[in-house]
């Protein structure tokens, strides 16, 4: 019985995250900062694959 609540909570949080992810991707970047990549040498280290996929997502 308890696992119903578990599914409910996990599902709602996942839905929230996905909704915000899509909403965030659709909000336009404020003008003047389109190709603004954080000027740090090792940023690929800091965010491993996520950062690349975000920038890939924004550009295409």
């Amino acid at each position, binding site marked *: 019985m*308890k696992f119903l609540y*578990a*599914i*409910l909570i*996990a*599902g709602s949080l*996942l*839905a929230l995250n*996905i909704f915000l992810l899509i909403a965030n991707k659709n909000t336009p970047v404020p003008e003047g900062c389109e190709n603004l990549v954080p000027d740090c040498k090792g940023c690929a280290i800091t965010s491993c694959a996520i950062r690349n996929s975000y920038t890939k997502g924004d550009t295409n």
Partner: protein
Amino acid sequence: MNRESTLYKVVVLGVVSAVCGVLLSWINGITAPIIKAAAEAKEKANLEMIYPGAEFTAVETYDDPSGKITGVYTAEGKGMVYKAHVIGYSSNGIDFLVAINDDGTFGGFQVLSQSETNGFGSRCFEEDHMNKIRAMSVGDDVPLLSGATITSTALKGGIEAAEALFAGE
């Protein structure tokens, strides 16, 4: 139902969270009792060290302003056992049990975990200093150890919190 439609996403989301929820609850169902049993056994073993063979009942509600006491147990006909956590020199803190007999004398003192700097703080946990504490009774001041002031004052705080609770009984 193509892949990018929101309905498809909702289905994927539902399936993933359902599988993950069920799997976790099932595994938790198996491991939770084992963890609880192991924790209780460990707790009992610690208490046995002080009053071997006594019957312990945990006291649920106790008001401890200092926040140092993490557990209170009554040993039938022997006294009270207080579990305390204090922060000495190292940030992981010190966990110890102090037992006070019904007549006010100290029934025992047992350190569960500590990671004080060896050579300084750790001198508080050598037998001679511990015996000094064990020989105490409620009301007299806790013996401090020169050269390990931070650790011994931390212990003092914990013991005094226990005494306050005992007196408050």
